[in-house]
Protein backbone atom coordinates (compact mmCIF):
# COMPACT_ATOMS: atom_id res chain seq x y z
CA UNK A 1 0.00 0.00 0.00
CA UNK A 2 1.51 3.32 -0.93
CA UNK A 3 1.42 6.49 1.16
CA UNK A 4 -1.49 8.02 -0.73
CA UNK A 5 -3.64 4.98 -0.01
CA UNK A 6 -2.64 4.99 3.61
CA UNK A 7 -3.40 8.70 3.82
CA UNK A 8 -6.92 7.98 2.64
CA UNK A 9 -7.24 5.13 5.06
CA UNK A 10 -6.34 7.40 7.95
CA UNK A 11 -8.89 10.10 7.08
CA UNK A 12 -11.61 8.79 9.41
CA UNK A 13 -9.22 8.94 12.35
CA UNK A 14 -8.10 12.42 11.47
CA UNK A 15 -11.74 13.45 11.28
CA UNK A 16 -12.56 11.93 14.65
CA UNK A 17 -9.71 13.73 16.33
CA UNK A 18 -10.44 16.99 14.53
CA UNK A 19 -14.11 16.84 15.50
CA UNK A 20 -13.24 16.52 19.14
CA UNK A 21 -10.51 19.12 18.85
CA UNK A 22 -12.43 21.94 17.18
CA UNK A 23 -16.04 21.01 17.91
CA UNK A 24 -18.08 21.60 14.80
CA UNK A 25 -18.10 19.42 11.76
CA UNK A 26 -17.34 22.04 9.13
CA UNK A 27 -14.30 23.46 10.90
CA UNK A 28 -13.11 19.98 11.71
CA UNK A 29 -13.29 18.89 8.09
CA UNK A 30 -11.55 22.09 7.03
CA UNK A 31 -8.77 21.22 9.41
CA UNK A 32 -8.55 17.71 7.99
CA UNK A 33 -8.53 19.04 4.47
CA UNK A 34 -5.77 21.53 5.18
CA UNK A 35 -3.82 18.78 6.87
CA UNK A 36 -4.19 16.44 3.92
CA UNK A 37 -3.20 19.10 1.43
CA UNK A 38 -0.19 19.90 3.50
CA UNK A 39 0.61 16.23 3.86
CA UNK A 40 0.54 15.79 0.14
CA UNK A 41 2.73 18.81 -0.41
CA UNK A 42 5.22 17.61 2.19
CA UNK A 43 5.07 13.90 1.48
CA UNK A 44 8.63 14.00 0.19
CA UNK A 45 9.67 14.94 3.73
CA UNK A 46 7.98 11.92 5.22
CA UNK A 47 10.43 9.13 5.89
CA UNK A 48 9.21 5.81 4.65
CA UNK A 49 8.94 3.16 7.27
CA UNK A 50 8.23 5.62 10.05
CA UNK A 51 4.80 6.04 11.57
CA UNK A 52 2.64 7.82 9.00
CA UNK A 53 -0.17 8.26 11.50
CA UNK A 54 2.11 10.05 13.98
CA UNK A 55 3.47 12.21 11.16
CA UNK A 56 -0.06 13.17 10.10
CA UNK A 57 -1.15 14.03 13.60
CA UNK A 58 1.93 16.20 13.99
CA UNK A 59 1.02 18.00 10.76
CA UNK A 60 -2.56 18.42 11.92
CA UNK A 61 -1.40 19.78 15.22
CA UNK A 62 0.77 22.36 13.46
CA UNK A 63 -2.00 23.34 11.04
CA UNK A 64 -4.38 23.70 13.95
CA UNK A 65 -2.00 25.81 16.00
CA UNK A 66 -1.48 28.10 13.03
CA UNK A 67 -5.20 28.41 12.45
CA UNK A 68 -5.87 29.22 16.05
CA UNK A 69 -3.17 31.81 15.92
CA UNK A 70 -4.54 33.18 12.66
CA UNK A 71 -8.00 33.69 14.05
CA UNK A 72 -6.51 34.95 17.29
CA UNK A 73 -8.65 32.72 19.39
CA UNK A 74 -7.14 32.83 22.80
CA UNK A 75 -7.56 30.41 25.59
CA UNK A 76 -8.73 32.97 28.06
CA UNK A 77 -10.63 30.33 29.96
CA UNK A 78 -7.44 28.49 30.69
CA UNK A 79 -7.54 28.34 34.41
CA UNK A 80 -11.10 29.25 35.11
CA UNK A 81 -13.68 26.71 35.93
CA UNK A 82 -16.87 27.27 34.02
CA UNK A 83 -20.15 28.36 35.47
CA UNK A 84 -21.34 24.80 34.96
CA UNK A 85 -19.39 23.85 38.03
CA UNK A 86 -21.62 25.91 40.24
CA UNK A 87 -24.74 23.99 39.51
CA UNK A 88 -25.98 21.33 41.83
CA UNK A 89 -24.08 18.13 41.49
CA UNK A 90 -25.87 15.06 40.25
CA UNK A 91 -22.92 12.83 39.76
CA UNK A 92 -20.97 12.75 36.57
CA UNK A 93 -23.40 11.41 34.03
CA UNK A 94 -21.80 13.46 31.35
CA UNK A 95 -23.93 14.00 28.32
CA UNK A 96 -22.64 14.52 24.88
CA UNK A 97 -23.59 18.10 24.31
CA UNK A 98 -21.93 19.02 27.51
CA UNK A 99 -18.94 16.89 26.72
CA UNK A 100 -18.45 18.93 23.56
CA UNK A 101 -18.68 22.11 25.53
CA UNK A 102 -16.52 20.90 28.34
CA UNK A 103 -13.77 19.83 25.96
CA UNK A 104 -13.96 23.17 24.22
CA UNK A 105 -13.23 24.81 27.54
CA UNK A 106 -9.93 23.05 27.96
CA UNK A 107 -6.81 24.91 26.91
CA UNK A 108 -6.05 23.61 23.43
CA UNK A 109 -2.71 22.08 24.36
CA UNK A 110 -4.34 20.03 27.12
CA UNK A 111 -7.19 19.06 24.82
CA UNK A 112 -4.74 17.76 22.22
CA UNK A 113 -2.96 15.53 24.71
CA UNK A 114 -6.15 14.14 26.19
CA UNK A 115 -7.64 13.35 22.78
CA UNK A 116 -4.52 11.72 21.39
CA UNK A 117 -4.30 9.51 24.45
CA UNK A 118 -7.97 8.72 24.75
CA UNK A 119 -9.24 8.62 21.18
CA UNK A 120 -6.13 7.76 19.22
CA UNK A 121 -4.81 5.60 22.04
CA UNK A 122 -1.31 6.82 21.34
CA UNK A 123 1.33 5.90 23.87
CA UNK A 124 2.57 8.78 26.00
CA UNK A 125 5.86 8.64 24.08
CA UNK A 126 4.04 8.91 20.76
CA UNK A 127 2.06 11.89 22.00
CA UNK A 128 5.28 13.55 23.15
CA UNK A 129 6.82 13.05 19.72
CA UNK A 130 3.72 14.09 17.82
CA UNK A 131 3.36 17.33 19.72
CA UNK A 132 7.06 17.97 20.15
CA UNK A 133 6.92 18.22 23.93
CA UNK A 134 8.66 16.32 26.74
CA UNK A 135 6.88 13.33 28.15
CA UNK A 136 6.62 14.98 31.56
CA UNK A 137 4.62 17.74 29.91
CA UNK A 138 2.37 15.13 28.32
CA UNK A 139 1.67 13.66 31.74
CA UNK A 140 1.01 16.98 33.43
CA UNK A 141 -1.28 18.18 30.62
CA UNK A 142 -3.14 14.89 30.65
CA UNK A 143 -3.60 15.12 34.38
CA UNK A 144 -4.78 18.73 34.27
CA UNK A 145 -7.12 18.10 31.37
CA UNK A 146 -8.77 15.20 33.13
CA UNK A 147 -9.08 16.97 36.40
CA UNK A 148 -10.67 20.00 34.76
CA UNK A 149 -13.15 17.83 32.91
CA UNK A 150 -13.92 15.92 36.06
CA UNK A 151 -14.66 19.12 37.91
CA UNK A 152 -16.93 20.23 35.10
CA UNK A 153 -18.67 16.87 35.19
CA UNK A 154 -19.19 17.07 38.91
CA UNK A 155 -20.70 20.49 38.51
CA UNK A 156 -23.11 19.37 35.93
CA UNK A 157 -26.79 19.16 36.65
CA UNK A 158 -28.99 16.34 35.51
CA UNK A 159 -31.06 18.75 33.48
CA UNK A 160 -28.81 18.66 30.47
CA UNK A 161 -30.40 17.06 27.48
CA UNK A 162 -28.86 14.40 25.39
CA UNK A 163 -27.63 15.50 22.05
CA UNK A 164 -25.82 13.42 19.51
CA UNK A 165 -22.44 14.71 18.60
CA UNK A 166 -22.50 16.98 15.61
Amino acid at each position, binding site marked *: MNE*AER*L*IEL*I*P*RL*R*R*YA*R*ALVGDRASA*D*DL*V*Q*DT*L*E*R*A*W*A*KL*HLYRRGTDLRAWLFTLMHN*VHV*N*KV*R*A*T*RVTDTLEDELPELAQRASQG*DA*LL*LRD*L*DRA*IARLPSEQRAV*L*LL*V*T*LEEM*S*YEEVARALGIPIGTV*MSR*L*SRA*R*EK*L*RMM*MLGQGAAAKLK*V*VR
Partner: protein
Amino acid sequence: MSTEPAVTEADLQAYADARLGAERSAEVESWLAAHPEEAERVAAYRRLGEALRAAYDPVLAEPVPQQLEGAAKPRPSARRIASIAGWIALGAVLGALSGWEAHDWRRPAGGPLAEGAAMARRAAIAHATYSPEVRHPVEVGADQEQHLVAWLSKRVGVNVRAPKLDEAGMTLVGGRLLPGESGPVALFMYQSAAGRRLTLYIRAEAKGQRETAFRYARENNVSVFYWIDRDCGYAISSADLSKDELLRIATLVYKQLES
Protein backbone atom coordinates in the same frame (compact mmCIF):
# COMPACT_ATOMS: atom_id res chain seq x y z
CA MET B 1 2.27 4.63 55.57
CA SER B 2 6.00 4.19 55.02
CA THR B 3 5.48 0.70 53.64
CA GLU B 4 3.21 1.92 50.88
CA PRO B 5 4.68 1.90 47.42
CA ALA B 6 5.02 5.46 46.13
CA VAL B 7 2.19 6.02 43.68
CA THR B 8 2.66 9.05 41.50
CA GLU B 9 0.14 11.09 39.59
CA ALA B 10 1.64 9.69 36.39
CA ASP B 11 0.93 6.18 37.71
CA LEU B 12 -2.68 7.10 38.28
CA GLN B 13 -3.02 8.49 34.77
CA ALA B 14 -1.41 5.39 33.29
CA TYR B 15 -3.65 3.23 35.45
CA ALA B 16 -6.71 5.08 34.18
CA ASP B 17 -5.47 4.37 30.66
CA ALA B 18 -4.79 0.73 31.53
CA ARG B 19 -1.18 1.13 30.48
CA LEU B 20 0.62 -0.24 33.50
CA GLY B 21 2.18 -3.66 33.60
CA ALA B 22 0.35 -6.30 35.62
CA GLU B 23 2.60 -5.95 38.64
CA ARG B 24 2.54 -2.18 38.85
CA SER B 25 -1.14 -2.19 38.12
CA ALA B 26 -1.74 -4.49 41.12
CA GLU B 27 0.30 -2.17 43.33
CA VAL B 28 -1.67 0.86 42.26
CA GLU B 29 -4.89 -1.06 42.77
CA SER B 30 -4.07 -1.94 46.33
CA TRP B 31 -2.99 1.65 46.97
CA LEU B 32 -6.30 2.88 45.56
CA ALA B 33 -8.18 0.47 47.84
CA ALA B 34 -6.73 2.42 50.75
CA HIS B 35 -7.45 5.80 49.14
CA PRO B 36 -11.13 5.85 48.17
CA GLU B 37 -11.15 9.47 47.05
CA GLU B 38 -8.33 8.88 44.64
CA ALA B 39 -10.00 5.67 43.53
CA GLU B 40 -13.15 7.61 42.70
CA ARG B 41 -11.12 10.19 40.81
CA VAL B 42 -9.44 7.51 38.70
CA ALA B 43 -12.78 5.81 38.08
CA ALA B 44 -14.14 9.14 36.87
CA TYR B 45 -11.21 9.42 34.45
CA ARG B 46 -12.04 6.02 33.06
CA ARG B 47 -15.68 6.95 32.61
CA LEU B 48 -14.55 10.13 30.93
CA GLY B 49 -12.51 8.12 28.45
CA GLU B 50 -15.50 5.94 27.71
CA ALA B 51 -17.69 9.00 27.24
CA LEU B 52 -15.18 10.53 24.83
CA ARG B 53 -14.97 7.40 22.76
CA ALA B 54 -18.74 6.99 22.76
CA ALA B 55 -19.10 10.59 21.62
CA TYR B 56 -16.52 10.66 18.86
CA ASP B 57 -16.04 7.10 17.65
CA PRO B 58 -19.17 7.36 15.50
CA VAL B 59 -17.21 9.81 13.33
CA LEU B 60 -15.10 6.84 12.21
CA ALA B 61 -18.15 5.29 10.62
CA GLU B 62 -19.28 8.40 8.78
CA PRO B 63 -18.76 8.43 5.04
CA VAL B 64 -15.71 10.52 4.19
CA PRO B 65 -16.65 13.69 2.31
CA GLN B 66 -15.45 13.59 -1.25
CA GLN B 67 -13.35 16.72 -1.03
CA LEU B 68 -11.32 15.14 1.73
CA GLU B 69 -10.52 12.11 -0.36
CA GLY B 70 -9.66 14.49 -3.14
CA ALA B 71 -7.31 16.37 -0.88
CA ALA B 72 -5.41 13.20 -0.13
CA LYS B 73 -4.62 12.77 -3.80
CA PRO B 74 -1.85 14.33 -5.84
CA ARG B 75 -3.82 17.14 -7.39
CA PRO B 76 -6.51 19.13 -5.64
CA SER B 77 -9.85 18.90 -7.34
CA ALA B 78 -10.24 21.68 -9.85
CA ARG B 79 -13.79 22.31 -8.76
CA ARG B 80 -12.88 23.28 -5.29
CA ILE B 81 -10.71 26.25 -4.61
CA ALA B 82 -8.09 24.88 -2.29
CA SER B 83 -7.91 26.45 1.09
CA ILE B 84 -5.37 29.13 1.62
CA ALA B 85 -3.29 27.07 3.98
CA GLY B 86 -3.10 24.41 1.32
CA TRP B 87 -2.01 26.94 -1.24
CA ILE B 88 0.72 28.23 0.92
CA ALA B 89 2.04 24.76 1.56
CA LEU B 90 1.78 23.80 -2.07
CA GLY B 91 3.13 27.11 -3.22
CA ALA B 92 6.14 26.78 -1.00
CA VAL B 93 6.83 23.29 -2.20
CA LEU B 94 6.20 23.78 -5.87
CA GLY B 95 7.81 27.19 -5.87
CA ALA B 96 5.90 27.93 -9.00
CA LEU B 97 2.45 28.87 -7.90
CA SER B 98 1.57 30.64 -11.10
CA GLY B 99 2.11 27.53 -13.16
CA TRP B 100 -0.02 25.56 -10.77
CA GLU B 101 -2.76 28.15 -10.84
CA ALA B 102 -2.75 28.25 -14.60
CA HIS B 103 -3.10 24.51 -14.62
CA ASP B 104 -5.87 24.11 -12.15
CA TRP B 105 -8.03 27.14 -12.62
CA ARG B 106 -7.77 27.25 -16.36
CA ARG B 107 -7.53 30.97 -16.24
CA PRO B 108 -8.77 32.50 -19.47
CA ALA B 109 -5.85 34.03 -21.26
CA GLY B 110 -5.38 37.76 -20.79
CA GLY B 111 -7.96 40.39 -20.03
CA PRO B 112 -8.14 42.62 -16.98
CA LEU B 113 -10.85 40.52 -15.37
CA ALA B 114 -8.88 37.32 -15.29
CA GLU B 115 -5.75 39.24 -14.35
CA GLY B 116 -7.63 40.88 -11.53
CA ALA B 117 -8.92 37.60 -10.20
CA ALA B 118 -5.41 36.17 -10.16
CA MET B 119 -4.26 39.27 -8.30
CA ALA B 120 -7.06 38.87 -5.76
CA ARG B 121 -5.93 35.32 -5.06
CA ARG B 122 -2.36 36.39 -4.58
CA ALA B 123 -3.47 39.21 -2.33
CA ALA B 124 -5.54 36.79 -0.23
CA ILE B 125 -2.57 34.46 0.08
CA ALA B 126 -0.37 37.34 1.14
CA HIS B 127 -2.96 38.39 3.68
CA ALA B 128 -3.30 34.89 5.08
CA THR B 129 0.48 34.58 5.27
CA TYR B 130 1.39 37.82 6.96
CA SER B 131 -1.60 39.06 8.92
CA PRO B 132 -1.35 36.37 11.63
CA GLU B 133 2.25 37.35 12.29
CA VAL B 134 2.71 38.69 15.75
CA ARG B 135 6.37 39.58 15.75
CA HIS B 136 7.17 40.19 12.10
CA PRO B 137 4.03 41.33 10.30
CA VAL B 138 5.98 43.85 8.20
CA GLU B 139 9.49 44.45 6.99
CA VAL B 140 9.46 48.18 7.54
CA GLY B 141 7.30 49.70 10.25
CA ALA B 142 5.03 52.75 10.03
CA ASP B 143 7.58 54.69 12.08
CA GLN B 144 9.65 54.81 8.89
CA GLU B 145 6.76 55.46 6.56
CA GLN B 146 8.63 57.85 4.25
CA HIS B 147 11.40 55.37 3.74
CA LEU B 148 8.89 52.55 3.30
CA VAL B 149 6.92 54.37 0.61
CA ALA B 150 10.03 55.51 -1.24
CA TRP B 151 11.51 52.03 -1.15
CA LEU B 152 8.35 50.27 -2.31
CA SER B 153 7.73 52.87 -5.06
CA LYS B 154 11.23 52.32 -6.36
CA ARG B 155 10.98 48.55 -6.35
CA VAL B 156 7.44 48.26 -7.67
CA GLY B 157 8.15 50.85 -10.32
CA VAL B 158 5.16 53.14 -9.72
CA ASN B 159 4.45 55.71 -7.08
CA VAL B 160 2.71 53.86 -4.31
CA ARG B 161 1.22 55.58 -1.30
CA ALA B 162 -0.03 54.30 2.00
CA PRO B 163 -3.52 55.80 2.35
CA LYS B 164 -4.64 57.21 5.70
CA LEU B 165 -7.40 55.04 7.08
CA ASP B 166 -7.76 56.63 10.49
CA GLU B 167 -11.37 57.54 9.85
CA ALA B 168 -12.05 53.83 9.44
CA GLY B 169 -10.21 53.15 12.68
CA MET B 170 -7.27 51.50 10.95
CA THR B 171 -3.69 52.63 11.39
CA LEU B 172 -0.68 51.72 9.32
CA VAL B 173 1.48 48.96 10.77
CA GLY B 174 4.02 49.07 7.94
CA GLY B 175 4.71 47.25 4.73
CA ARG B 176 6.75 44.75 2.85
CA LEU B 177 7.85 43.80 -0.62
CA LEU B 178 6.49 40.62 -2.19
CA PRO B 179 7.21 38.72 -5.37
CA GLY B 180 4.40 39.08 -7.90
CA GLU B 181 3.64 37.44 -11.20
CA SER B 182 5.35 40.12 -13.25
CA GLY B 183 7.45 41.95 -10.73
CA PRO B 184 7.69 43.13 -7.15
CA VAL B 185 4.50 43.99 -5.29
CA ALA B 186 3.92 46.29 -2.33
CA LEU B 187 1.92 45.18 0.68
CA PHE B 188 0.78 47.60 3.35
CA MET B 189 -0.72 46.35 6.57
CA TYR B 190 -3.19 48.19 8.77
CA GLN B 191 -4.56 47.34 12.13
CA SER B 192 -7.43 48.54 14.29
CA ALA B 193 -7.21 49.20 18.01
CA ALA B 194 -8.89 45.83 18.54
CA GLY B 195 -6.19 44.08 16.51
CA ARG B 196 -8.22 43.52 13.35
CA ARG B 197 -6.02 43.65 10.30
CA LEU B 198 -6.28 44.41 6.63
CA THR B 199 -3.68 44.42 3.91
CA LEU B 200 -3.45 46.55 0.78
CA TYR B 201 -1.69 44.89 -2.13
CA ILE B 202 -0.43 47.18 -4.90
CA ARG B 203 1.20 46.14 -8.10
CA ALA B 204 2.21 47.87 -11.29
CA GLU B 205 -0.05 47.24 -14.28
CA ALA B 206 0.99 47.14 -17.90
CA LYS B 207 0.65 50.46 -19.65
CA GLY B 208 -2.69 51.03 -21.29
CA GLN B 209 -4.48 48.92 -18.74
CA ARG B 210 -8.12 49.87 -18.44
CA GLU B 211 -9.84 50.76 -15.25
CA THR B 212 -12.11 48.20 -13.70
CA ALA B 213 -14.92 48.47 -11.22
CA PHE B 214 -14.55 47.18 -7.69
CA ARG B 215 -14.75 43.45 -7.66
CA TYR B 216 -15.23 41.20 -4.71
CA ALA B 217 -13.72 37.81 -4.09
CA ARG B 218 -13.73 35.59 -1.10
CA GLU B 219 -10.93 33.12 -0.70
CA ASN B 220 -11.39 30.81 2.22
CA ASN B 221 -12.14 33.27 5.02
CA VAL B 222 -10.40 36.24 3.43
CA SER B 223 -12.53 38.93 1.78
CA VAL B 224 -10.89 40.80 -1.07
CA PHE B 225 -11.95 43.90 -3.00
CA TYR B 226 -9.81 44.55 -6.02
CA TRP B 227 -9.65 46.98 -8.85
CA ILE B 228 -7.31 48.32 -11.48
CA ASP B 229 -6.83 52.02 -11.87
CA ARG B 230 -4.48 53.36 -14.52
CA ASP B 231 -1.03 52.01 -13.84
CA CYS B 232 -1.78 50.16 -10.61
CA GLY B 233 -3.71 47.11 -9.52
CA TYR B 234 -5.05 47.19 -5.99
CA ALA B 235 -6.45 44.50 -3.73
CA ILE B 236 -7.55 45.08 -0.21
CA SER B 237 -7.97 41.97 1.93
CA SER B 238 -9.08 41.10 5.38
CA ALA B 239 -10.12 38.02 7.28
CA ASP B 240 -11.27 40.15 10.20
CA LEU B 241 -13.64 42.64 8.58
CA SER B 242 -17.06 42.08 7.08
CA LYS B 243 -17.64 42.59 3.40
CA ASP B 244 -19.44 45.87 4.05
CA GLU B 245 -16.74 47.22 6.32
CA LEU B 246 -14.12 46.26 3.80
CA LEU B 247 -16.05 47.90 0.96
CA ARG B 248 -16.24 51.16 2.91
CA ILE B 249 -12.51 51.07 3.41
CA ALA B 250 -11.86 50.12 -0.21
CA THR B 251 -13.89 53.16 -1.26
CA LEU B 252 -11.85 55.31 1.08
CA VAL B 253 -8.61 53.94 -0.35
CA TYR B 254 -9.82 54.47 -3.89
CA LYS B 255 -10.74 58.10 -3.26
CA GLN B 256 -7.43 58.88 -1.61
CA LEU B 257 -5.31 57.20 -4.22
CA GLU B 258 -7.22 58.75 -7.08
CA SER B 259 -6.73 62.30 -5.90
